[in-house]
């Protein structure tokens, strides 16, 4: 069965909103990913998160150089336009992407300005299987005391994120989507501190 553009995407949006307002909370969108009948060559939860938010009014950037195919597919399905990393409203990162490319993009992407902090990039990241193990300690609005999240990103990734959110209210927001149909979010307000490497 094909994705229902109205009801399935509404459900995914509500899960995204739930996870964005409660950072570290992992939401399952298994019911909806079951409906995806096209192979985009990436996690279904990742593609659904993009479908919920992208349309002709926004731009996106796919980090991977050899994924012309994915760019075309996303454009065809959502009518969103491809843009450079400096201009894109949404930056799509696949698990196969090189860390050096990710860090470079993080340094270049837009973070808004003090007058319009909402004009910043939102990152949609295909991640390792999400869990609430204590790889990261999260604190900030939406979290009662502290939350734990594991996304598989390296220490350097979190350092790079820190350097782009320190000028709050400017910053970037992140959506993590894994191959087990789970999503979690990290808005710019949340401090994510990596625990010691085990």
């Amino acid at each position: 069965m094909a994705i229902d553009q109205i009801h399935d995407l509404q459900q995914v949006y509500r899960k995204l909103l739930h996870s964005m307002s409660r950072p570290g909370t992992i939401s399952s969108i298994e019911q909806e990913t079951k409906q995806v009948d096209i192979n985009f060559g990436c996690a279904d939860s990742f593609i659904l998160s993009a479908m919920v938010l992208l349309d002709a009014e926004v731009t996106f950037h796919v980090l991977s150089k050899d994924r012309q195919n994915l760019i075309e597919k996303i454009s065809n399905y959502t009518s969103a336009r491809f843009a450079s990393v400096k201009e894109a409203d949404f930056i799509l990162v696949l698990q196969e992407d090189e860390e050096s490319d990710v860090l470079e993009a993080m340094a270049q992407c837009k973070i808004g300005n003090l007058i319009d902090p909402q004009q910043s990039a939102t990152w949609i990241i295909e991640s390792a299987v999400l869990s609430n193990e204590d790889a990261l300690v999260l604190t900030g609005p939406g979290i009662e005391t502290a939350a734990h999240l594991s996304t598989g990103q390296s220490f350097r990734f979190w350092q790079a994120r820190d350097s782009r959110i320190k000028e709050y209210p400017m910053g970037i927001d992140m959506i993590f989507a894994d191959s087990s149909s789970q999503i979690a979010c990290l808005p710019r307000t949340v401090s994510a501190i990596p625990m010691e490497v085990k």
Partner: protein
Amino acid sequence: MRTNTHFAFFDEGSKKEIRRATLKAVAIPGYQVPFASREMPIARGWGTGGLQLTLSLIGKTDVLKVIDQGADESVNAVSIKKLVQETTGVQVTDQTEEADLIQSRHRIPEIPLTKDQILVLQVPMPEPLRPVEAREYATKRMHSEDDYSGAWLMLFEQIVKYGKTATAADHPVYVNGRYVMAPSPIPRFDNPKMHQSEALILLGAGREKKIYAVPPYTAVESLAFEDYPFAVESFEGQECRLCGSAHVFLDELIDQKTGETVYQCNDTSYCMEQLNSTEKAEVESSYA
């Protein structure tokens, strides 16, 4: 001719735009995110911001409650409920606990909200600095510079004039220690309910084209001076004449016949619930 409307009235493009603005609003608590407020079948300034948020959120399985100044059955609440119900077919309710989407005009329900609920507030004037500065680009700059002297001055002038802060409703709050926000014209009584709330609170201003949010577990502090601390409306010694509840927000009414001042719960569904619980006990006891 009667045509079928799209689910939740909006086209999907409009929903997406509102959803993107909402996620940004959640990520920057208290900051007013501009959005392309749509024409709605009700007039701007009558809850179109809240309505647009509700329509962008709602799904087939949601249960909706709409309140207007505490009442489930006043015109604004009923019209909005009808519009949403006719275009989505969702279940509507008066019970606060049953609803997972609550759209409200100027009140936060008496029953504490839970993590599975979303409160949508209708906002007429989202800009707390508007009374001191008419230009939008100037107020945006003030927000960017964390310059809230205008809001403080407003409260100070009230103290000079009236001996206390005289905000009847819409008393400005600091959200997450960064943005000063208009909490919508809720009574001061409801301001503390926003602090570390369990439910997500979304605020929508249709005419002013702004969406903003207070995520759960976020610090919301009412503006106040050390020597003039923030105080909520006091109903000391008063209780609801119908259900007898105290420690709730009461409406002050004048009895037409006797000319006496009487008090009554503002939250009608809460009042009804209290009455029903006592009624039931009476029936049970008489049966026994």
